[in-house]
């Protein structure tokens, strides 16, 4: 009897005990730690910003008040914030998908440009019933973004060209190409008008029939694409949580060899993830154009206006969690909308930019710390194993 009841090898029981003690109460306390970290970082950022504004002769209170006014408090402003948040969410959702598959896409800025440019061409030139044209321009925008990301993906799997480089460099190509399209009449340049002495380098405005309808709530108006965006977040959430595809995508991202053995083709899944990511950025561009919050329904040089980059940041801060992405995107959009009101406070532009950057940084630090902590814990656990 006694012989049968062999004690567990100490290592096993140690792991079990430590895992148990880490796991059971962990969920809550982990969340608490994260929340405290965010709060702490934001408070520190606010204090440092206040000091900077105060030292340079401004009023910290005015600055923060202006930020709040511009993003939420003033009439109509939270509608504006939602309008900005829409493309951020879409870009970030795409980024979450390619991140999950372990492929890097940092070229969203270019993909947004391409999506918007192609959407502008369709929106201006395609004749037909408004809603149909809108659907067409959104689809074409998505295809354009996917195509742009697809180039990087193709180079990656064909010749192992690092996608970090290609996606990044394709931003420059996109901005030059769309810039050129805005110079020639047969592409995007708006026709010459007699009543204007200067010919602006912009596209024709989308006619009212092919603009996304806007929702109006208490004087806050924003495009109906917002509903589609929430739906997209839900879909991505389900994909990540419950779908076989999402499961296999994660497997690929975390251990490509295991994935290949289990039937996940690196090329197929990696390319699909990249194409979806590009399509998201492209459709974000198309939504920006047809939504009206950017460029007043015209495609302009530099149309993407850092939305691609910021979307990337949103995904990073939200740690690729679909719900987190919506929340973070709204915060980032709030800062963007609020910054419009900063000029009125008399604080110099450079200083107000520093304040904004500090607040963004405050949101970036906690996920980085959490990530490093997790990594460390996993590493030390594997090391102790031996």
């Amino acid at each position, binding site marked *: 009897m006694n*012989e049968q009841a*062999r*004690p*567990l*090898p*100490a*290592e*096993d*029981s*140690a*792991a*079990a*005990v*430590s*895992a*148990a*003690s*880490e*796991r*059971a109460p962990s969920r809550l306390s982990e969340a608490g730690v994260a929340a405290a970290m965010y709060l702490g970082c934001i408070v520190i950022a606010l204090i440092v910003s206040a000091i900077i504004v105060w030292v340079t002769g401004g009023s910290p209170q005015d600055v923060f008040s202006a930020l709040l006014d511009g993003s939420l408090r003033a009439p109509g402003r939270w509608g504006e914030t939602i309008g900005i948040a829409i493309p951020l969410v879409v870009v970030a959702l795409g980024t979450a998908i390619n991140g999950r598959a372990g492929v890097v896409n940092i070229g969203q800025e270019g993909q947004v440009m391409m999506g918007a440019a192609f959407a502008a061409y369709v929106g201006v030139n395609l004749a037909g019933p408004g809603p149909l044209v809108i659907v067409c321009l959104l689809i074409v925008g998505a295809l354009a973004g996917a195509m742009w990301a697809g180039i990087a993906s193709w180079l990656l799997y064909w010749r192992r060209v690092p996608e970090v480089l290609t996606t990044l460099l394709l931003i420059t190509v996109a901005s030059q190409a769309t810039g050129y399209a805005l110079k020639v009449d047969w592409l995007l340049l708006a026709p010459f008008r007699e009543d204007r002495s200067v010919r602006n380098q912009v596209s024709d405005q989308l006619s009212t029939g092919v603009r996304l309808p806007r929702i109006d709530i208490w004087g806050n108006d924003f495009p109906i694409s917002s509903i589609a965006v929430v739906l997209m977040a839900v879909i991505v959430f*389900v994909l990540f*949580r*419950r*779908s*076989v*595809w999402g*499961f*296999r995508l*994660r*497997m690929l991202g*975390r*251990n490509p*060899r*295991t*994935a*290949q*053995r*289990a*039937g*996940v*083709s*690196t090329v197929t899944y990696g390319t699909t993830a990249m194409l979806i990511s590009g399509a998201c950025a492209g459709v974000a561009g198309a939504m920006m154009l047809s939504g009206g919050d950017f460029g007043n329904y015209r495609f302009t040089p530099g149309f993407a206006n850092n939305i691609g980059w910021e979307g990337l940041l949103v995904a990073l801060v939200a740690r690729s969690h679909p719900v987190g992405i919506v929340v973070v995107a709204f915060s980032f959009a709030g800062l963007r909308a609020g910054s419009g009101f900063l000029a009125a406070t008399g604080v110099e532009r450079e200083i107000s930019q520093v304040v904004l950057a500090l607040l963004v940084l405050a949101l970036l630090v906690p996920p980085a710390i959490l990530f490093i902590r997790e990594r460390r814990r*996993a590493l030390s*656990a*594997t090391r102790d*194993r*031996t």
Partner: protein
Amino acid sequence: MADQPTAGTEVPAVRLTSISKSFGAIAACDRVDLTLRRGRIHGILGENGAGKSTLMKVLIGLVLPDGGTIEVDGERCQIKDPHDAATRGIAMVHQHFSLVEPLTVWENVMLGDTGRFDAAAARRRVGEISEHYGLGVDPDAKVGDLSAGVRQRVEIIKCLRRDPSILIFDEPTSVLTPGESEHLFDVLRQAVRDENRAVALVSHKLDEILHATDEVTIMRAGVVVQRMETSEADAPMLARAMVGREVSLRSEASALGLIETAAAAETPDADSDGQIEVAGDSSGTRVPALRLRDVAARGPDGRISLDGLSVDVFDSEIVGVAGVEGNGQAALTDLLSSLLSAESGTVEVAGTAVEPGKPGAMSRAGVAVIPEDRHASGCVLDMTVAENLFLVDIERISTRGLYDPAVMRRDAARLIADFEIQTAGPDAPFWSLSGGNQQRVVLARELSYSPKVLVAAQPTRGLDVGAIEWMTDRLREVAASGVGVLLISSELEEILQLADRVVVLFRGRIIGEMARADVNLEELGLLLGGSDAAASAAEAA
């Protein structure tokens, strides 16, 4: 408990007194005493988790003890970090290599040096050490090109270069072939006898302890259970002390390194004998569960790794692939894991041809794999235990592309119970499991999709006695249930103990085959060395 051996009146090189160290509620070491003397090899024997590694980490400064004293050369001291240990002349050769593959041997040895640096002198010094101890390591060789045994010797050079007076070896033979182990112990003997160093040899293999050490300390569950002169010890006695109960040497012989193969070969036990007959009778008519014909493949470096390999595995049969490591074992496992495509030749599973390089093709065809390096291709460390149990066949619990995490968790809990996996639960991250339990998860998953063939590559490597016993029993059960098992192992004892049929892998092809009952150790040894004469003799037979 035996008295400490008295070796004259000289001051011991190291005296650890009453060392304790706890991790959480678990006492890894509980008032452990250990004395290392110059000119002697001290074996420290124990199962995984017995506390031997922790004790050594205390000595090398990687772990700070909760209590107890350390004396080095009679002087009481604290060892705060490995650097501290190095200045006191203590050096350790770790179980896992820390070498940079693209660099040469001497560059690796010099890594971590600070200050002025004389490349020519460093190179010369590495050559001298290698020659002095007969290590036969070329200082200019690229580490990436070297076998595990030679890499180990590079680690030893790294260690000896600082001329330490106290050497610690942590499971040094876990990746070595028997010949390489012999060589290692010769070097150790020399370092001890001629240069009066003190050596601590940590191991869970009995034969190593018996052959290589002068005295032995046996640990179990954090305490010293026995210490004695090795000359007074014998294998069953050590095994009993280490495991804390009678050991059935049959299933654990390989773990403990008791080479009883000659006896086993003469009197094969009944069940394996019977299986050989079944396989022999029907091999002409029955379709093999797995058939490889003239398979050739190249590794990622472009070198030929499989060169016309042919082998059959029938239902209910364990085929052991013996061979010195580096002769294509890794490529064969990769091929059967859909990680490597064949350049020529065919792979058939139960009579159906499979394209091996296609992702997932082998597992879909019913080839389960316990990979040699489970972290590389057997699991996803960052996923949960439940998810790892469903990596290959998530479709089983999904409808229209969606699965229910609750169902996954429930099914996983059942597998966890069936396979006695020690874990906090289905949601625990996979990395939180110990090696033996990770291996159980892999086996549980691979068996859960009713495979036709199970490929087990070095399935017991790095596991402790209890885990090895469990694993070998499972492999037998799997074969008994009708699955063909291909056991790829560099431990001959393991193969002879489990396999019904033994094939020998040499330079990417099978050069010999014999039924377990006909195994002739001498001939097998020649085959392992690639001897042509033996190969043709085996083919003739």
